[in-house]
């Protein structure tokens, strides 16, 4: 059964799903040599730099590690706020 149904019914997700989720994260760390706290710091610094130049909404930003085949890529989706100066 799907995980969300399990959660809805207050059950633990199947152990295979937990294994897969945990492995996903640990493989990112292993492949990139980045710990999850380093990745968090990277995200925060990235936001800080971008925020210095453009107006962004920190809550709308998504920065995550993606797997494509055996390649890792850091994917950032940063919606820009409409510039107020030109209105």
């Amino acid at each position, binding site marked *: 059964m799907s995980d969300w149904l399990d959660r809805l019914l207050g059950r633990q997700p199947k152990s295979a799903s937990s294994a897969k989720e945990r*492995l996903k994260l*640990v493989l990112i760390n*292993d492949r990139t040599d980045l710990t999850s706290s380093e990745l968090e710091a990277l995200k925060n610094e990235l936001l800080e730099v971008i925020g210095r130049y453009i107006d962004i909404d920190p809550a709308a930003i998504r920065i995550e590690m993606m*797997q494509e085949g055996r390649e890792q890529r850091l994917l950032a989706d940063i919606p820009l706020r409409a510039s107020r100066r030109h209105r």
Partner: protein
Amino acid sequence: MAAHVVTISSGKGGVGKTTTTANIAVALAMGGQKVACIDADIGLRNLDLILGLENRIVYDLVDVVEGRCRIRQAMIRDKRLPELYLIPSAQTRDKSAVSPSDMVRLCDELRQEVDWILIDSPAGIERGFRNAMAPADMVVVVTNPEVSAVRDADRVIGLVEAEEKGPARLVLNRLNPVMVKRGDMLAPDDVLELLAVELIGIVPEDDTVVVSTNRGQPVAMDAKSRAGQAFQNIARRLKGEQVPFMDLDEKKGVLGWLSRIARAGGD
């Protein structure tokens, strides 16, 4: 003749590397191929035992490398199969007795003699692993559907790519279809998604492996064993044949037999 050199590796120990090596070797030899397997696990000799050849060792890998005998003299011929040979590992030696270039030289000499050279790599990613990797044309990574085995397989696959020996092929060993169905074991698709590597075999968990290992008769010799069939299929895929992956849901015993008949009737 120019042999294909295939190294069987895993990172983690205990996932069935040696069993996989022995059974692929047996399956290839049963198909008429000339096969030499090399136990590269110096200090922890085991391939001889799995193949049932432990009583016939005179010379070993280190003897060959150090020039105490010729390769031919260290090749134990399996009497059950016409063209299966084993070069056993040394049991109580210094692990640095063999270098990657020794392995390359040895395999180059052997390449002219056989169709396949299978190298059983030790666990870990140190010297012994590098020795086993050095002469490889292809690397087969064995894993189990368990978190630590998958993680270590990923490290090894990465190293295989970094050494430009890739792409590695994956054997998913000891899969329990009942547990997968229950959601309590990583499914083959999950493992493949995580590792992003080409699958070359799924071997179901099977009591016959333990029984045949006890007797020193690799399970690939047992035509009735599911695991044995899986190893036969891996050997055929290595030879380039297109072999479909077996249906692991098939039930055993009378009920399974009845349901198969019912299904065949319904088709």
